[in-house]
């Protein structure tokens, strides 16, 4: 019941059993933000920190974040590292293969703005937001696992405010 407490709902005992009263928005958002499946996909240095975050010490699983290899199964894509021009077209394709609703976290300075490669990187895309929309930017080179977790919690907060009637961006 622990996680259910986070769902802003009204639970009442009725004759036919327990009945839960909540709005559709809240139920949808609650289920979405507690099972954000991420892409099993790493780009560069940040991927190692992402691995460290999903391994036992920091344990991403407790947020319901499970890595899946196929883009058809996933909700969030973590751009964990430098996006090169050669890779950029592939990332765009992966993004388009993901089913809605989908979210993107840009992890690390490279994915945010080119990072240390901003000036002379003739083969580096200066920010992944030039090809796909980004929901949360996590700064750092590389961000610590705690920073990545903070980014994921920020994304959860964002999902919590979404509405079926009006898509909040």
């Amino acid at each position: 019941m622990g996680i259910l407490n986070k769902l802003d709902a009204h639970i009442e005992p009725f004759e036919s059993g327990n009945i839960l009263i909540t709005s559709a928005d809240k139920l949808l958002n609650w289920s979405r933000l507690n099972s954000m499946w991420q892409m099993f996909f790493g780009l560069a240095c940040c991927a190692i920190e992402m691995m460290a975050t999903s391994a036992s010490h920091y344990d991403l699983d407790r947020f319901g974040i499970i890595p899946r290899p196929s883009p058809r199964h996933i909700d969030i894509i973590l751009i964990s590292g430098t996006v090169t021009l050669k890779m950029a077209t592939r990332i765009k394709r992966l993004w388009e293969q993901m089913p809605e609703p989908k979210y993107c976290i840009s992890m690390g300075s490279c994915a945010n703005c080119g990072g240390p490669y901003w000036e002379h990187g003739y083969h580096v895309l200066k920010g992944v937001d030039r090809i796909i929309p980004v929901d949360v930017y996590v700064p750092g080179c590389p961000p610590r696992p705690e920073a990545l977790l903070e980014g994921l919690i920020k994304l959860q907060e964002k999902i919590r405010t979404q509405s079926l009637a009006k898509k909040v961006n």
Partner: protein
Amino acid sequence: MAEIRTEEMILNMGPQHPSTHGVLRLQLTLEGEIVIDVKPYIGYLHRCFEKHCEAMTYPQVIPYTDRMDYVNSMSNELSYVIGMEKLLGIEVPERVEYIRVIMSELQRIASHLIAIGTYGNDAGAFTPFLYCMATRERVLELFEITCGARLLYNYFWIGGLSHDIPSNFQQKVKEFIKFFKPKITELNNLLSFNKIFIERTANIGILPADYAINAGACGPTLRGSGIKFDLRKNEPYSIYNKFDFDIPIGQGLKGTLGDCWDRYMVRIHELEESVKIIEQAIDNIPEGDVQAQVPKRVKPPVGEVYARTETPKGELGYYIISDGSLNPFRIKARSPSFCNLSMIRALSKGYMIADVVMTLGSFDIVLGCIDR
């Protein structure tokens, strides 16, 4: 039954694939499940390292070397600073050499733990990965108390270190060694001698010794084929000649000499050897300064140097050309993974698709190092 030929199929593996260890793309030509050709495509992480070097000053290059092979940053830095010190003719204080050796060996442990963990992951065993990463966190803790960073350190500077080790460092390292020793046995029980794992890796991806040398193999990949060659012993740099350690080589215990299991096992044995080196070094760190006299503006004389060291992946070499100015004229990084990966084609022909994954994992490639 007459031999049936199936239609050739071309299968694309990567750049987004969980077992290519990053953004590598392999184009497999298959006949049924048998691989008849592999065409590797690299460059999906080409971050223009060499161009950056030409625009930076010599000390500014160090953070970029960190980002080449990002799971063993310390060793990357070591190779570069050794090259620069040769070019400048700088003698480094002994305290620095000791700390460098300890750091490099700790980094070797961290890097091999990732190699072993992800290799188990490739074979379908997820548990060893979690165990290895949990152990690796303990190594990162040691780095963190020293230089504040978990992954990319910028710790070795030309002529010394960025700063001294903290006062409780030796104590912490000893605690770690005590904690780590039983972990090797645990890994062996969990993965190395697991029947399924041996079936997956023995007699797969056999690398003959003469081809290994000809194709430029290095590191555990070379030693897995039974060649006793380690730059730490054969061309000692820093103060490695002061320490007593063995060079583990593949012996073909579970299959043919030079198969994936041999390469894997070399890494396990290297963990033990690294522990040995750290144990010898940790109590003997002399007192002293951690920075030699280096001019503020590093300006090496006209000349060139090729410095190579033994990183966890193999021989990492920097070919540095100086034209006497503040910026390097040219820096070429000879990356170990680059040379090892170039053999994938010869090693996967005739095996199954699943075996290609195992062969690839046994090289322990890091794409940042390959593409630079």
